[in-house]
């Protein structure tokens, strides 16, 4: 049965695709306006810096995971920081992923509710989306991997539609190139937690990948590079066609940008509807990945047999919070909380853990 077993692990390139397809979700739509209002016409620079920063976070996570092959984060944390703190950190990890799922659900259903189905109650839209996500998450990893590889093709389709905005491009809108608000650019980077979502699931997915000739850092790096380029060119074209000030005063600037494209003489109208359709696969993948990472992480750390046991545990919480944050004020508070916790986990906890590993290794070598 040698052949059948070899398929159990995914290759490094598949890991790259998995992480890449989880990055681009509908969350970025609501975050574009605040970030462009900070960074103005240099939004692209903000996106580029954010890409480098979040790749650094992913890189640290991969290095951490490589210290403990075959183990997920829930399993090796107690050995680093003790059981109590380990449980707290694992809980933070789960919260980060839950926050991702909730934000994705809220962003996607808000988008659908405004542009496609304005009288349908949003609770219903959330329920339908969660049913589909749960159906995806209860499958085993090989199925989910295949689903991701299929839905990954939504990404180029999305970009093909989005690139039509170039038709309205006016280079004047990108000037002046000299940044006079460095603080604004850096503030814009903070909003990019909505742009690079779901890579935290690496900590659970690394043991599922086969170590081959290609290193994970390289494949994930390529993925981040592609996504960062998409965002950089996206920022350039968006600001170039509808100006930074317009973006700052519009709720969903990317959709607004699509609305401004008219292709007379073709069959295609209302391009924003097509674009919303192509956001759904990316958001779905990110939600399934995060949910699977939670379930699998819990399963491995609590030594259960089946990850499906943990799926109903978080479902009511996800639904309730997704519906709760429809109020603009609550949404704002929740966004701040999401950004804070994502940064805290990626840039405080992970480096700390790496430091502890390095110190432990140093001590072990001395012994």
């Amino acid at each position, binding site marked *: 049965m040698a052949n059948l077993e070899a398929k159990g692990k995914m290759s490094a390139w598949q890991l790259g695709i998995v992480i890449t397809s989880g990055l681009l979700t509908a969350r970025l739509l609501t975050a574009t306006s605040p970030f462009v209002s900070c960074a103005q016409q240099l939004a692209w620079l903000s996106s580029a810096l954010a890409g480098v920063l979040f790749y650094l976070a992913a890189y640290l996570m991969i290095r951490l995971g490589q210290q403990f092959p075959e183990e997920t984060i829930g399993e090796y944390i107690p050995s680093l920081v003790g059981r109590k703190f380990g449980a707290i950190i694992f809980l933070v990890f789960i919260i980060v992923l839950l926050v991702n799922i909730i934000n994705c659900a809220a962003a996607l259903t808000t988008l659908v509710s405004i542009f496609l189905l304005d009288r349908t109650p949003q609770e219903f839209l959330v329920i339908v989306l969660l049913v589909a996500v749960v159906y995806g998450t209860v499958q085993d990893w090989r199925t989910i991997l*295949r689903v991701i*590889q299929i839905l990954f093709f939504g990404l180029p389709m999305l970009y093909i539609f989005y690139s039509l905005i170039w038709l309205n491009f006016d280079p004047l809108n990108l000037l002046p190139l000299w940044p006079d608000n460095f603080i604004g650019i850096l503030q814009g980077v903070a909003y990019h937690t909505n742009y690079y979502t779901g890579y935290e699931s690496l900590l659970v997915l690394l043991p599922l990948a086969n170590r081959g000739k290609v290193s994970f850092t390289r494949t994930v790096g390529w993925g981040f590079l592609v996504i960062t380029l998409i965002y950089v060119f996206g920022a350039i074209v968006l600001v170039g066609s509808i100006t930074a000030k317009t973006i700052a005063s519009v709720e969903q600037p990317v959709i607004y940008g699509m609305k401004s494209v008219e292709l007379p003489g073709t069959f295609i109208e209302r391009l924003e509807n097509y674009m919303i359709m192509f956001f759904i696969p990316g958001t779905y993948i990110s939600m399934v990945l995060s949910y699977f990472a939670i379930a699998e992480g819990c399963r491995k750390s609590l030594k259960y047999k089946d990850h499906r046991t943990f799926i109903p545990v978080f479902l009511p919480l996800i639904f309730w919070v997704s519906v709760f944050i429809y109020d603009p004020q609550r949404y704002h508070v929740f966004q701040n909380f999401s950004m804070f916790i994502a940064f805290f986990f990626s840039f405080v906890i992970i480096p700390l853990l790496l430091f502890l590993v390095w110190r432990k290794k140093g001590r072990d070598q001395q012994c």
Partner: protein
Amino acid sequence: MDKPLGFRFHKLSAVQANSSISETCHRLALLQKQVQQSKEIEAAISVAVKDLRKAMAPDGQPFIFTNNIEMNEQLVRSALSRCDDIKYRSFRAGKAKALLVYLSGLTDTSKLEKTVIECLTGKLESNETFGDMNEITDLLITAANVTVVEKPTEVITNILKGNSLLLIDGISDALSIDAAKYEKRQISKSENEDVSKGPHDAFNETLSDNLALVRRRTKDPDLKVEIFEIGSRTQTPVALLYVDDIVKPGLVDEIRNQLLSIDIDKVIIAANIEEFLSNRIWNPFPQALATERPDKIVAGLYEGRISIIIDNSPSALMLPVSLQDFMQSVDDYTERPAVASLTRFSRYVSLFIAVFLPAIYVSIVSYHPGMLPAGLAFSIAELRAKTPFPSLLEAFLMEGLLEIFQEAIVRLPQKLAAAAGVVGALVIGTTVVEAALVNALLVVVIALTGLSTFSMPSYTFGMALRFFRIPALLASSVLGLYGVAIFAIVMIVFLCSLRTYDESYLGDLFDITLIADWKDGVVRLPAKFLTSRPKRLGPKDRTRLGGED
């Protein structure tokens, strides 16, 4: 006679004592009861006799053969009682009595005459005796295939297969002579899978003919054929074919075990076995490819698949199979690669249209008419202003009409089929629109959907797509394009979760580790590039073209 001749009416029974009707009836009833009882006693006795015989016979056998031919004949006759198509021919073989038992209709009697009766009656002295059946088979019988059988169940089954039974007085063994000949359908064109340029011969219902068709296409000694008998009553021969040095190790064992563990009483069609080999019973997609074409079977065998051919069924099964195999046709390989690639790609587009086009129509018309260009939107609105039904209902109406029409076409006799085509075109096409029941655009949509379904190379697969059209319509009528998108995702997850013998149902579609296999997936690259077998089936020998032997 001293009574006067007067006219008086009396009962006959007053004159003759035993002619009372009531008594006659009573006696008749008794007689009937006794006949009934005697029948029951006969049945009980035959059961008792069977049991008695069983007590002597080994386990699982109804009786045991003795040295006495009359006793043997009696035993065989009682096992095959009331089967009037079984013929018994007794003759003398030397000194001993001999009996030939055969099923007329399935036996070649002229062959029996030549190879058995003539040999045994003509050439022997009248006082010759035999000690052993082997003497007869080695020296006298000229038939090509003879088997000495001891077990009576085998004997009975052999007779029912068309082989004949030879019993010799004094020998307790029986001889089974292969002389089966029966009426069968000639090798003809495939009914459902004919192609424009490939070979036209198709499987018929005879297992030996089908195996011959496969063997003719390859002279490879590594092509193994294992024959089992499945079905406790029908004992249908089922052949398992595979190429030993190509197929994935372990796959053959698994399938063989599953076949042998099938415990049903009858196997009449290939689908009886196919259902036992699928692991998800409610899944509408077929998990084994049923084909009537030997070239498809041979091509599959050489990719590392396993084939199962069932007697009395023109459909042979091929496992494991993926969605791409249902989307392939022999025409892809007989046409030029560039043209074939385009055709194949268009088939995938048809797949999408067949499932989603009515759903997209309903969602755009009811939920998002802004997505249509202005002129089209106005003209469609004008068309729809005249028709009474909401879009979901009229989509269901047309869908229902299409399904009824499809079923009617299949059942109609040949002579009426042409007329039915005209009626269908008129009814579904023109008249429904003129009666202002549905609008013309919907007719176009439904016609396109129907055509896309029919363009699927595999009929079963097309039926599975029909199954998914309805939920797609419901999803779109509830939530518009969002519903369609969510349904599409759920359908993709469902397809990805299907697995046959640990092979994903989607094959190498969208799996980048199997990127080497994409050359023969959605497109068909020229044969020069198809140098290796598909990686996903895990074949042991991957080189196909060039390379070492």
